């Protein structure tokens, strides 16, 4: 009985010291981490919708209504510049070969895709992971309508040897464009 109390006290003391030092480190680093994440998010948004200078998040409830049953629609932003509405950005998730692919897709008010950024993916390194390359994502800017890879008779060059990853990415872009159109009332 005595031992249990002694052990308890020692363990509690060690945990308390540990907790206090972690709280200190966290309070110092969390500010930097948050600022950096925000900066990274802003940078990605500026790439996918270069015309816009200001971004407003679409409320989750409204987004759910617009997405009407589509799964994997995560977030959406309306972009605007000094000249008024500039377009919409939609963050979606689609299925690749190795798991979910998360991406940010920007579309202007004419319904033309402005840019695509892959935020996270778990595709095969050296093959499917090439969907994050500029060579692949860069070709979406200027495209509109329902997209497909060239192998399926579409207009997007697939990453060679990674048809499933490419198809997954294109499916995500299509989904995002659909949601963006609905948001902008096109």
């Amino acid at each position, binding site marked *: 009985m005595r031992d249990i109390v002694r052990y308890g006290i*020692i363990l509690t003391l060690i945990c308390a010291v540990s907790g206090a030092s972690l709280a200190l480190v966290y309070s110092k680093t969390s500010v*930097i981490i948050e600022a*950096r994440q925000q900066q990274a998010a802003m940078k990605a948004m500026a790439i996918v919708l270069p015309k816009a200078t200001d971004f407003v998040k679409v409320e989750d409830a409204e987004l759910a209504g617009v997405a009407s049953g589509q799964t994997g629609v995560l977030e959406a932003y309306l972009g605007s510049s000094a000249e008024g509405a500039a377009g919409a950005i939609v963050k979606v998730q689609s299925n690749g070969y190795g798991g979910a692919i998360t991406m940010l897709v920007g579309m202007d008010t004419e319904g033309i895709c402005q840019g695509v950024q892959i935020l996270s993916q778990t595709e095969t390194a*050296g*093959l499917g992971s090439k969907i994050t390359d500029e060579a692949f994502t860069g070709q979406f800017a200027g495209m509109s309508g329902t997209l497909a890879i060239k192998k399926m008779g579409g207009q997007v060059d697939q990453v060679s040897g990674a048809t499933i990853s490419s198809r997954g990415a294109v499916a995500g872009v299509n989904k995002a464009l659909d949601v963006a159109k609905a948001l902008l009332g096109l």
Partner: protein
Amino acid sequence: MSALNEFKKGLWAESPVFVLLLGMCPTMATSTTVMNGLGMGIAATFVLLGSNLFVSLLRKVIPDKIRIPCFIVVIATFVTIVDLMMSAYLPDLHKVLGVFVPLIVVNCIILARAEAFAYKNNVLNSVMDGLGMGIGFTLALIILATIREPIATGRILNAPDFGFGGLALFPAKFAAGLISQPVGGFMTLGFVLAAINGLANRKKMRQDAACGCPAPKEV
């Protein structure tokens, strides 16, 4: 003098990866590029140093029966500190190492050194042991990564955190992506271990021959 020996043994003679064969999981996952290996190595060295220091300091306070939970709390604290610091100051590296940073908690090298060494030795020796083992781990990761990175990507020393794309050795289309997968890691480790053992055997045979002892039988 003995403190220096405690430091030196981890570098090569008792290298955690090449001799003790501990910590295989982070080794396979993070020796894909030299920069990743170095980052993981430094993170693990910091944790080893901290955990060995505190376990050794507290070895008279920590009762035998609850030593493992105490070690884990100490180790987890240092791992979380590394995780937060890395995500604040080296975000690209943190993104690549991902889940392997929090998983340093269960890296067997660290618990093994706490249990087998720091709990039984004085502070100076424990710190030296932690530093030596950590640098030995880093060294092993860098050796494996120096082989794997060029084969897998065609480049070496790619370091996005420092805005350096690496030196191109050959065109990426000839790269073998398989080597950056765990399979390739084990293959590389196998060849490196074979080379190390082969060299050690030859050295021994030469020594035996020099002293006139009967040559060992071929195996």
